[in-house]
């Protein structure tokens, strides 16, 4: 009862900016209208959304970072920050959590190994995501549409989630009122933040700079900016980046410290002080930019302050707490975000910058505090991202040049909402870091500005800080007395609040839709609930297991038993000798694919018992180890075996189950997998799929094989398929061209082991356990190498030889070692044909019948005769032997007995005397066996 809704996606408003290089327009708002419903859902940047995924019940959760479309308007894309659901975290890693996960819990996803660009069409609806304190309990709520974030997940560990991008009307700017009396000497509060800033010091698509660009006078400053950026990028790639950032932040602190009295915007905008302070080029440039920005914003001061003031108010409490204790600060931040929850994440356009900023700042916090090693570990990733931003200045410039008209339009649309907001939004979308930088710089300055008034409100905010919007408003009203610009701010903010309320209402629409959706979901859930022991399905709770034994298994007691244990095929050897080259080839193939995050196929062939599967498993063990050691990105290894499924289409079911744990029918599983491998998603890991006994997956249309080899070629699949079969030319023999072509030419064949290799294998398995004579080993390996080169056979023979040795050990002659005679006996047991022995042991009549058969064959000159013909010969032979001639029934019985042993091949016995008889053994063998009597 799936509700297939047809949605249409449109941009609202004019493009905010245009990227000339990529030919993309950036937008602030996306409107989703559902066919048949008058309500429209508006998605803005910063909002949390659900994105269509393979699991219909659990769509992906993400936050919109940026919205853009191409020139033609055909392609609508969104850059998102992913959150992973519980179900997307590998079950094995869930235990790292150390507690029972909440069903509605999601994790902030921190890993670079995932494409963060999605098609807008895959957006389902907005969702509410609450950031929670890591220690706080989950709110007791039935609301299925609220998700909770406590931790972040980087595909290896859980960490405390970066604090929520301050929602709604609270751009997380500088904690100006809450700062302890002397900001410069309060490192806990400022250091992390400033460090973050310092790293992003230069690439600032500062709103003001943009404005300047639009007014056409920015040419030179842009040039300097990009130069500075380059310098910065360099500094980040240098080993000394940390110390550099430290010194920068220290400077910043000094700066702040030297201007504690600054309170007025006018003062703030006076550049002289700062310029005099800043020594190095970077900070100079920074200062210059900010100076310009402030100077420009002065005339249009209300907008600027509007965007800043909520930040100040909302943000100060956490910062204040942070000042007290750095550790708890993140926690407080989370609390704060919780408090803002009833106003949905991105209610208004004006604060669209804020989540971003908070996000970034949080990241900066994490990375910036170099003191804690754990946080340090997050840095490399970030620096990488940094490198990327450093390379994009030109694009940014282009964006800037376009931004101004867009601004104007937007300003018209939402009257009071000054151009400032969209401006802030635009640069952020492409260069969030620079946005952060701007915000942080502004915050710093504001910090200086509002230092004193902040102190009183600070105290109040500390104990009970703005849990609701109303309180927020009241607190803002409280601040009204702070100054006229503050009053101005407040009035503006009230408007903003109203606005946010309005948008919140708008946001509620989708939520009501969500409830409708959830109701449609219920029937899907009921069947699973309905499963009771009485229904004729596999009980879900059934765990496949063999009962455990009451007494422990005995350990090997002597050398021979020890050797036998080691020689058992099942014992996993420490290493795989004689397959080094193959190991290396497969290893580097898979490793390269995992590192690149691409996909590929490999075909491995070889006769049975040449170590194909064992080698692949060994490779996977090593790679897994490497992944655990963080040398390569984590990957997911699953294996299916054509022989272990009842029909080829079960392959889908097994793959799906091993990937996600879902159970589905073959068709449904195929569809889900198809979706999974063709859509971009927050899939963290490359999947390595081992398909053993590939030939069993053959179907007439070959669609199973086709899909298996087609998925790795998809852009987002990140699937490596290793296939194993016996015949070297399988692709050419059984696959149609389009399948063989997709399998590619990465092939490898395992040659049968030579006798030296077999000997080495046994030696390495025995591992200094002296149980075999040298010659005996050589005999076994030579014999097996000559016959098949099957290592399993070799090991089995050795095992049997130890048994024979053990039996004969009772005799005094035995040396205790497995000798030639034991091996010979074992070889005879396993390889000698039993036909001759069987003929020798047959009864007299049976032997006579065989002779009669040969006689008749010779008479006829054919290799086939009817029973009747043979019987005549048989009776004649009986007379020659002086026996009573056999009756027909007796003769038939003799014939049937020989047929049951397959010494003779017979037609069905209902043909009676007419059935035709053939020999299943060569005539020579029969004659030899009979003569030896």
């Amino acid at each position, binding site marked *: 009862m799936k509700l297939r809704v047809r949605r249409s996606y449109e941009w609202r408003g004019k493009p905010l900016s245009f990227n000339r290089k990529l030919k993309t327009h950036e937008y602030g708002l996306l409107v989703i209208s559902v066919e048949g419903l008058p309500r429209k859902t508006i998605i803005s940047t910063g909002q949390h959304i659900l994105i269509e995924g393979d699991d219909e019940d659990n769509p992906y959760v993400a936050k919109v970072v940026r919205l853009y479309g191409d020139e033609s308007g055909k392609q609508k894309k969104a850059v998102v920050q992913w959150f992973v659901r519980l179900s997307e975290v590998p079950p094995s890693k869930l235990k790292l959590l150390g507690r029972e996960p909440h069903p509605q819990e999601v994790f902030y996803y921190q890993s670079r190994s995932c494409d963060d660009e999605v098609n807008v069409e895959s957006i389902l609806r907005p969702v509410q995501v609450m950031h929670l304190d890591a220690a706080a309990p989950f709110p007791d709520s039935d609301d299925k549409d609220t998700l909770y974030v406590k931790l972040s997940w980087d595909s290896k560990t859980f960490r405390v989630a970066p604090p929520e991008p301050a929602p709604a009307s609270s751009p997380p700017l500088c904690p100006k009122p809450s700062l302890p009396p002397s900001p410069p000497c309060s490192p806990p509060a400022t250091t992390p933040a400033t460090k973050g800033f310092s790293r992003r010091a230069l690439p600032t698509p500062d709103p003001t700079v943009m404005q300047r660009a639009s007014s056409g006078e920015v040419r030179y400053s842009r040039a300097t900016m990009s130069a500075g950026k380059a310098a910065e990028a360099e500094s980040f790639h240098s080993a000394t980046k940390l110390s550099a950032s430290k010194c920068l932040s220290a400077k910043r602190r000094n700066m702040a410290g030297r201007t504690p009295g600054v309170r007025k915007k006018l003062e703030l905008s006076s550049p002289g002080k700062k310029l005099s302070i800043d020594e190095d080029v970077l900070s100079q440039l920074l200062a210059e930019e900010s100076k310009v920005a402030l100077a420009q914003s002065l005339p249009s001061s209300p907008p600027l302050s509007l965007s800043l003031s909520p930040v100040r108010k909302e943000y100060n409490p956490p910062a204040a707490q942070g000042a007290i204790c750095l550790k708890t600060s993140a926690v407080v931040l989370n609390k704060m975000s919780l408090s803002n929850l009833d106003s949905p994440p991105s209610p208004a356009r004006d604060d669209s910058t804020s989540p971003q900023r908070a996000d970034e700042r949080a990241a900066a916090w994490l990375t910036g505090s170099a003191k804690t090693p754990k946080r340090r570990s997050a840095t490399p990733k970030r620096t990488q991202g940094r490198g990327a931003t450093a390379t994009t200045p030109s694009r940014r410039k282009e964006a800037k040049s376009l931004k101004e008209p867009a601004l104007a339009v937007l300003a018209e649309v939402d009257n009071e909402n000054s151009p400032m907001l969209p401006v802030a939004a635009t640069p952020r979308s492409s260069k969030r870091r620079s946005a952060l930088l701007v915000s942080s710089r502004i915050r710093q300055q504001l910090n200086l500005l509002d230092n004193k008034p902040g102190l009183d409100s600070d105290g109040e905010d500390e104990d009970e800080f703005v849990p609701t919007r109303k309180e927020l408003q009241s607190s803002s009203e409280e601040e009204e007395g702070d100054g006229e610009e503050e009053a101005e701010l407040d009035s503006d903010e009230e408007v903003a609040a109203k606005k946010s309320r309005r948008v919140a209402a708008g946001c509620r629409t989708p939520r009501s839709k969500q409830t409708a959706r959830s109701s449609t979901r219920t029937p899907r859930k009921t069947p699973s609930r309905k499963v009771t022991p009485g229904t004729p399905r*596999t*009980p879900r*709770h*059934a765990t*496949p*297991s*063999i*009962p*455990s*034994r009451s*007494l*422990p*298994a*005995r350990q*090997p007691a002597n050398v021979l038993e020890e050797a036998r*244990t080691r020689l*058992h*095929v*099942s014992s996993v050897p420490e290493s795989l000798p004689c397959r080094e080259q193959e190991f290396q080839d497969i290893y580097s193939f898979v490793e390269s694919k995992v590192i690149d995050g691409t996909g590929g196929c490999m075909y491995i062939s070889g*006769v*049975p018992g040449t170590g194909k599967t064992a080698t692949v498993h060994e490779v996977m063990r090593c790679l897994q180890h490497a992944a655990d050691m963080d040398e390569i990105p984590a990957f997911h290894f699953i294996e299916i075996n054509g*022989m*272990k*499924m*009842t029909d080829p289409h079960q392959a889908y*079911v097994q793959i799906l189950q091993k990937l996600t744990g879902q159970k589905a029918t073959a068709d449904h599983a195929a569809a889900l997998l198809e979706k999974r491998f063709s859509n971009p998603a927050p899939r963290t890991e490359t999947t390595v799929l081992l398909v053993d*006994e590939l030939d069993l997956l053959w179907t007439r249309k070959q669609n199973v094989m086709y899909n298996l080899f087609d998925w790795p070629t998809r852009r987002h699949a990140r699937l490596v398929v290793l296939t194993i079969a*016996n015949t070297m030319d399988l692709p050419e023999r059984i696959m149609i061209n389009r399948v063989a072509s997709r399998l590619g030419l990465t092939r490898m064949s395992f040659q049968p082991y030579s006798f030296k290799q077999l000997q080495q294998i046994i030696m390495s398995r025995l591992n200094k356990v002296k149980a075999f004579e040298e010659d005996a080993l050589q005999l076994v390996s030579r014999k097996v190498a000559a016959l098949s080169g*099957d290592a399993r*056979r070799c090991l*089995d023979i050795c095992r*049997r030889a130890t*048994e024979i040795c053990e*039996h004969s050990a009772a005799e005094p002659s035995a040396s205790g070692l497995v000798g030639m005679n034991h091996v010979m006996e074992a070889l005879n*047991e396993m390889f000698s044909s*039993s*036909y001759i022995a*069987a003929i020798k*042991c*047959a*009864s*007299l*009549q*049976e032997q006579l019948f065989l002779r009669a058969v040969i006689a008749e064959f010779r008479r006829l000159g054919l290799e086939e005769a009817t029973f*009747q013909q043979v019987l005549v010969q048989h009776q004649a032979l009986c007379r020659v032997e002086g*026996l009573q001639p*056999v*009756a*027909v029934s*007796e003769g038939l*019985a*003799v014939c049937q007995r020989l047929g*049951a*042993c*397959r*010494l003779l091949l017979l037609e069905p016995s*209902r043909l009676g*005397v*007419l059935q035709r008889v053939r020999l*299943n053994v060569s005539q020579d063998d029969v004659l030899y066996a009979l003569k030896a009597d």
Partner: protein
Amino acid sequence: MSKRKVKDAPLPLGDCLTEAQQVLRERFCRQQLPDRPEGVEAQHKHLLELLKRTAVHGESNSVLIVGPRGAGKTMLLQCVLRDLLEETEVQKNLLQVHLNGLLQTDDRVALKEITRQLHLENVVGDKVFGSFAENLAFLLEALKKGDRSSSRPVLFILEEFDLFAHHKNQTLLYNLFDVSQSAQAPIAVVGITCRLDVLELLEKRVKSRFSHRQIHLLSSLTFTQYLQRARTQLSLPDNFPDSKFAQEWNEDVTTLCEDKSVEEVLQRHFHSSKDFRSLHMLLMLCLSRVSVAKPTIKPADLLDASRLCLADAKANMLHGLSILELCLIIAMKHLNDVYEGEPFNLQMVHNEFKKFLQRKSNSMYNFDQPVIMKAFEHLQQLELIRPADSSAAKTQREYQLMRLMLDHSQIMEALQKYPQCPTDVKQWAMSAFG
């Protein structure tokens, strides 16, 4: 003699005989295992050690027991299991799964049966839930979760092993052997088959995973041993309630076996087949003839029983035919002689029969065509003749080509014994030409 026994025996003779018959019948019908397997001690030891290692050490194994029908394969396995389960350690741990290729005709059925016998968790009562694919995945998962030291060992016994090799893809065999060759729950796979070429039936991957252990049961029995065996089979055990009766019975059996004619009969059976099943059948027939009036087995009983065993079924059927049907058979025989085994049809047979009638003046065998047709059809129903090719349904019944399913010797033998066979018919049959 019987009177003396009645007097001396503490038990009445009738009770003694009933008791003796019961003991011996149990033995002959293989309901009772022998105390120790005779002639296969080495194989017994090998198998016992092998299974013990699985049960005690958790070592996975696979083995095939191969031997002709009636060679004692199942008996050997049962003996080994009985001896194995005497150890409490084994008894507590070992799980057994018995499958038979004639019962579990495909993997779907076999899987359900395995799951049921293992009492896995998807079994409720006696019913196994889930689809084939689910069952397979479930079982494999169960086996995979186990490990050598902690899981209970499972013994899989596959009777008529060769029939499992005909299942699609040999999925079951592959998986069982694969488990036995990998570090999973310890299992022992014991296959029982009479086909010597069983390994050739296995697909190469399956074959590679099989350990290639084969236990061959081939009896290299001499006639003296056979005779000895027959005697011990007939003898009563020492713990028989009436020891005096037992002693006398055993003495009688010894004298019986020394009888020349008895020896000849047994020799003939020995030449025909060395297995004990046919011997048991023979002795069973003898035993059934023992009564209070005739409390011992006489050589004549054995001769009668032997005749009964070796009697030709088809020849016996000929005794029940009418003269007309017999005449038709003879006509067919002559046609076979003339045309060297080429098929014939009703018209040809009728023609041959008419030639015989023409030579005879009297027309006592003058039958109408429909009557002959009916007789012909009756012969077909008795499967004494069968259509030469099955696709001849279109042709008229008179012209459908047929083959005779009898050998000449059978026809002649039947004619000798046919009650009141007319001489001219006999002569016609004997004559070289129709």
